[in-house]
């Protein structure tokens, strides 16, 4: 276990300029879709990436293990695997450990060892830790990513998983046999690495618990965001800016219990002069939000799709510096970087539109617990009500969790 070996380093430290492509699809009726549509949507956006990263997240894909945390692992070598499995044995009850099902695909080379584990915290250890099961898992993820050399957690949520690597997304999707999975929500990404290396762990989606992020753009506030997150125990170790967005949503939504719309406003804050023009109650909320979450605000161009058990949310930076198109067909909401990706999957959408910068486009799976504290709309009085609990229209806010 202690043999000397060179520290794992990511390949390709060069820089290429380009875009990225993304997609998200959610059937709000809860109907399951195979991963095939997600692959097709990304294949149409092939030229938005350059083969240095592709990936998908699927939700509802492990109905046989709905209450286990599913860990998708990437190991640089067998030693990394042994070290992580020793940690798992110590802290978790592992009910199934198996290699990820893959098939050989031309173009996919140098894959790390890919394993998945269905596990739960060891009850006595969990009690001893005085943490919630989720915080316990987060701690383990941070620990593995930061201290086990050559081991990376691709995802760690319940009934979901991230499938990603170096290659074009359609190759990666085929490699991971995504047509064999069925989910109510899928997100996908095509990477064109700009500032950080193209490597397996650096492909999107980035995930923590069941939160996943696909991102087109660059988060110029990465430095301040990562320092802010460190104060809450998150460790940014994956060498890519997008990582902070996944952890910020975990912090704001799960730990601070902000309603989804407010969390989005904290990350893509309205400009100060926009706030000046808002009704008074909303101004107060937005000012507080910007003051409290200043270091969490995402600066720079982005289009992101956040996936989670219960739906997905697409969001642009506040001045719309990256493309995003949305469409609806019956109970299906779909978003992508290009309209053509949507039309490849949904031949005749009921409506196609461009979401407004900084305003979330939200899909919720019917009947599933909304994992977020509150469920509210952007009516100013309702926002301030949810935050301050003082406004008259409090009764109209439907809090579902």
């Amino acid at each position, binding site marked *: 276990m202690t043999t000397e070996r060179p520290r794992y380093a990511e390949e390709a430290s060069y820089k290429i300029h380009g875009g990225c492509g993304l997609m998200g699809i959610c059937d709000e009726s809860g109907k399951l879709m195979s991963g095939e549509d997600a692959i097709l949507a990304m294949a*149409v*956006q092939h030229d938005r990436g350059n083969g240095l990263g592709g990936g998908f997240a699927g939700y509802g894909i492990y109905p046989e293990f709905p209450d286990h945390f599913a860990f998708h692992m990437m190991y640089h070598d067998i030693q990394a695997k042994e070290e992580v499995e020793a940690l798992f044995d110590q802290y978790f009850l592992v009910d199934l450990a198996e290699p990820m099902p893959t098939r050989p695909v031309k173009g996919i080379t140098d894959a790390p060892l890919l394993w998945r584990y269905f596990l739960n915290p060891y009850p006595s250890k969990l009690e001893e830790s005085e943490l919630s099961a989720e915080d316990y898992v987060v701690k383990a993820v941070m620990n593995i990513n930061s201290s086990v050399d050559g081991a990376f957690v691709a995802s760690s949520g319940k009934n979901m998983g991230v499938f990603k690597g170096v290659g074009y997304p359609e190759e990666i999707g*085929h490699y991971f046999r995504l047509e064999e999975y069925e989910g109510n929500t899928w997100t996908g990404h095509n990477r064109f690495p700009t500032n950080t290396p193209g490597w397996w762990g650096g492909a999107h989606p980035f995930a923590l618990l069941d939160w996943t992020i696909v991102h087109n753009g660059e988060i110029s506030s990465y430095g301040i965001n990562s320092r802010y997150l460190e104060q809450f125990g998150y460790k940014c170790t994956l060498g890519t800016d997008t990582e902070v967005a996944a952890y910020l949503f975990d912090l704001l939504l799960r730990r601070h219990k902000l309603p989804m719309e407010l969390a989005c406003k904290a990350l893509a804050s309205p400009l100060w002069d926009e706030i000046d023009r808002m009704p008074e109650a909303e101004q107060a909320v937005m000012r507080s939000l910007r003051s409290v979450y200043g270091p969490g605000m995402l600066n720079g161009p982005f289009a992101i799709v956040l996936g989670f058990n219960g739906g997905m949310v697409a969001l642009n930076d506040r001045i719309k510096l990256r493309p995003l198109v949305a469409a609806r067909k019956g109970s299906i909401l779909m978003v992508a970087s290009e309209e053509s990706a949507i039309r490849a999957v949904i031949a005749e959408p009921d409506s196609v*539109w461009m979401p407004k910068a900084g305003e979330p486009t939200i899909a919720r799976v019917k009947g599933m617990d909304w994992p977020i504290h509150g469920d509210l709309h952007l009516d100013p009085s309702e926002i301030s009500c949810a935050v301050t609990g003082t406004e008259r229209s409090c009764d109209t806010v439907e809090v579902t969790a």
Partner: protein
Amino acid sequence: MPREMAPGVTEGYIKVAPKVTRDGDKVTIDSAGVYYKQLNEAIRSQIADGAKHIVLENVNGQRYIGTGVKAKDVKINVHGTAGNDLTMFMDGPTVEVFGAAQDGVGNTMNAGKVIIHGDAGDVLGYGMRGGKVYVKGDVGYRVGIHMKAYENLVPIMVCGGKARDFFGEYMAGGMLVLLGMNTQFAEQPLVGSFVGAGMHGGVIYIRGTVESWQCGKEVGVTEADEADMAELKPILADYCECQGMDLAEVLSEPFIKLKPFSHRPYGKMYAPM
């Protein structure tokens, strides 16, 4: 769309020459699943062989259609969703899209006409130097950014729906018109913020009004007067004819005019005058 799953990787587009049917100088090209490179090669070679009317069927997201094509009397009809950078650097042809267009239509376009019978995306008419772009529906962010004009090369763009932020940003020349009529965003404002921010040439006409906070500090807003309307009317008449709209209805509401205060707003910043 090819959707082969079992033996091979799903491809969005396949790199093969499209099926071309020629009838005199009219050519029909089936673009379904054809990679943009092969599609554009087919368009160019057909034009070189004397084709005057090219009909592209089943287009979905192929980039660069009409890009760099230099020909006055050629008409290209696009059926489907036109991909990014439609008609970039185009010099002469008329392109009509029966569907929506994505981002970057008319990027640095020189001459010709683009008629879109749907919505269009962001950075529409980026650095456009001449020709006309007529969009029926809504348009995205940064529309008409840095349009420019020189002598008789004056680009004109008319958008029938609503527009988002940075409409006419850094505009240096030409004419940009917003009607706000054919929109799916009934509840939203006519146009977003930063209208004409950094504008130092050309003119913007808007059917309706804007608040002063919506405009960049470089522009002045006035009601369009008789001379302005005389300039605008023939353009709107042409637009209405292309889009099948009623000119009288378009003219039934007053227009405002946005002009920059200075053609050289930053002249004093770097060199003393």
